[in-house]
């Protein structure tokens, strides 16, 4: 793992890195370097398999973290490439030309977070939701409770506006025990 990291460091600028296990490396790169480093990893280090593309919403510092999980069949190594993109305009590029299976992942991220992947023609199609017309539901500024109460309603005898506090009280008492 170490020498792999060194080899990558020789040619690319790594913002920070972390060796979780002896076959599990996490590196963070700039958004601009992402494509080159993915190409390098696929064709020179043969990390042929894009296992997952996921997204994290850092609403406090106004960033989306895009996480590409790669897998090397030869050496049985995991490699996570992280990059941060701007949350407001949330513009990113597709990696379909490197990993074609990224198409579906990007469609999902687009639907759930509203990240725009330049060059992915099918990202506007529905992935899990059917004709969703609100802000993307996985953004943390989207209030699911409010949405649920507005759209799906509740029984008259209930009042669920502060149900989250009640639940947290219960859980605190339970933790104390």
């Amino acid at each position, binding site marked *: 793992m170490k020498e792999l990291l060194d080899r990558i460091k020789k040619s690319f600028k790594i913002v920070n890195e972390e060796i979780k296990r002896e076959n599990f490396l996490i590196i963070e790169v700039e958004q601009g370097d992402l494509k080159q480093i993915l190409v390098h990893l696929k064709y020179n280090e043969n990390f042929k398999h894009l296992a997952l593309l996921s997204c994290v919403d850092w609403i406090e510092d106004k960033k989306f973290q895009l996480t590409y999980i790669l897998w090397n069949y030869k050496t049985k190594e995991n490699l996570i490439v992280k990059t941060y993109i701007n949350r407001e305009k949330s513009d990113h590029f597709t990696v379909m030309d490197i990993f074609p299976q990224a198409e579906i992942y990007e469609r999902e991220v687009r639907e759930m977070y509203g990240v725009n992947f330049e060059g992915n023609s099918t990202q506007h199609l529905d992935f899990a939701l*059917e004709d969703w017309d609100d802000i993307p539901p996985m953004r943390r500024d989207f209030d699911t409770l409010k949405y*649920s109460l507005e759209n799906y309603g*509740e029984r008259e005898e209930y009042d669920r506006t502060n149900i989250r506090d009640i639940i947290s009280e219960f859980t605190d008492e339970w933790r104390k025990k």
Partner: protein
Amino acid sequence: MADNKHFLNDKPEKLTYARVWEKFDNWARANSLWVVAYGTGCGSIEIPPMVTSRFDAERFGVNMVGTPRQADVLIISGYLAVKTLKRVIRVYEQMQSPKYVVALGACPINGGMYFDSYNTINLLDKYLPVDVWLTGCMPRPEAILSAFADLMKRIKEGRADGWKKYIDNLGEYRKNQEKIIKNWKMPNYNW
């Protein structure tokens, strides 16, 4: 000839022999309930054991059929995503009256543990008439059998009339359904 009258729900007590017929029919309906095998949520895994040798729902005349056209009972097994709700409504409208809905678990009643989910409905009876609620998360096959026993009792007493309610308040139900299912494109309702 007589049967279409009280299907249309216009005061069957006008003709008395029809009431006798209806009692007999209700007995027959109660004793041969055909369930459309359509698992909607996590509870659908509880239904197959119901017809196995251990629980043997067939001894009550409960059968699994593969098509909504021939079914009497629709089991809502657990939480309903909006996508699933669309299909469920479709299936329910393809079933022929009289038809009954059994809702399993807490989720159809009030959303259950998905009460604040952005794509899971909370109140099933806003969209479909429910004849028997069954609480628990998830109810075991014994509980489902007890629900069927309850449903049979209600049918024999003639109180399981959700389908009549659906026919009468179709507009209201449709309003609720179209509120959450955008661009509604489905064939018309056939009883």
